């Protein structure tokens, strides 16, 4: 590697290091609402306290989302890369799970940021008789 290469590498490393440190300063807060958006549009907001499973159907495919023990995670999806399903469960306001192929974002927000809460009691079903 030439001198210029090292300069470039070190510059980039410093830059990213600064960025990571800077972003690490953001206040991690306990959120109470899970916001799901698809292609930039609000899909739904759900309480983080109530355990439930959601099926999010996007134009590109589905993501199955589980809210459990104050954490939210994706437990199944038919996207090609599965990054969303591999992602650890999130529970803090700075965290998010993104499924790029399905253009879906799950994030945690504070109660007062919620716009459009889904009433859980209406939607939540334990079983289906069919």
């Amino acid at each position: 590697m030439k001198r210029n290469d090292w300069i470039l590498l070190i510059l980039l490393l410093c830059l990213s290091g600064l960025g990571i440190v800077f972003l690490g300063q953001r206040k991690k807060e306990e959120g109470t609402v899970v916001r799901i958006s698809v292609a930039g549009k609000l899909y739904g907001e759900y309480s983080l306290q109530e355990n439930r499973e959601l099926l999010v159907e996007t134009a590109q495919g589905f993501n199955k989302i589980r809210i459990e023990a104050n954490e939210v995670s994706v437990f199944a999806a038919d996207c090609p890369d599965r990054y969303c399903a591999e992602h650890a469960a999130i529970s803090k306001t700075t965290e998010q799970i993104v499924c790029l192929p399905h253009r879906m974002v799950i994030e945690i927000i504070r109660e007062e940021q919620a716009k459009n809460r889904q009433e859980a009691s209406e939607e939540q079903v334990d079983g289906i008789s069919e």
Partner: protein
Amino acid sequence: METKLRRKSYVAFLVIFITLICACGSGCATKKDGKTANENEEKRTIFAMDTCMTLQIWGPQAKEAMDAAVAEIEHLDRLLSTGSPDSEVSMLNQMHEGVVGNDTAALLARSLALFFETDGAFDITVFPLMEAWNFTGDNPRVPSKKELAGLTRQVDSSLILFEPDNKQVSFPETVKIDFGGIAKGYTGKKIAELLKDYDVTGALLNLGGNVQLVGAKTDGSKWNIAIQSPKKDGYLGTVFTSDCAVVTSGGYERYFVEDGITYHHILDPKTGYPAQSGLASVTVICADGTLADGLSTALFVMGEKRALEFWRNRRYEFDCILYTDTGELLVTGGLKDCFSSELSYRIVE
């Protein structure tokens, strides 16, 4: 000299790279490992009785209870399957007589009682008809009128002679039986009883759409059970209940289309054709899973008027939700405080 330098920087870089990968691997990639939320919770999905069953059990001995429940389902499946030639039911259909075990005897007694109570709307001897339509196989077909007329004459549970005391059964050679319309309900009920020996605090058993509830949820509340809409476009509504079975029968579950006509799998024992009673789906909510399963089929065959009449005579035993072909939703009086729906519905008294 130049190669040496290059090699040095190469090694130096590799070291940095590997260190960073390791740091990153342990730090930011906290992959989740299939953790179970609660030690006292067990969830299992199995395939038995020709359908997919999901069992959820909560309690200090959930694991043991689950193993026992699965063993019981497999035991009953082996006993009652018309698909396997050495099940007790298949043997009976070949020999036309014999002494049966406790489970088969209990099912026979219940089935015969239901046959008389429902005026033949529930009949375990429809099996030859089911075979003729081949609803059990992969390629269902419409049998000829003549064939059905011949078979329908043999469909009559009163031809079965059953002595409950010594569990002796016999029936004519032309008769074949199948507990398909009641087996899942009986299984649910048996498991519900079995779970009581394991200090289970709650269980949600979904036996291929037959829901059997035991105890309460972890937060002590009742369960919210949705009723599938026949058009599969959502739910007809939800029932908030506990310690009972919620069983739905509908023509939408298994059907085929030939020459533009839809034929579903709930046959009217009297005509041999799929029941055309004006009902699209029937849900029965009942403490006894066996009764719930049998009645959901019987009420579907009976149609709205006879079904509601039947309910009025036995309103303390069960409740039901009827959805007609014209889209009317009828709910019997006992459910008025626990049924909710976005659709408009009528409470029947």
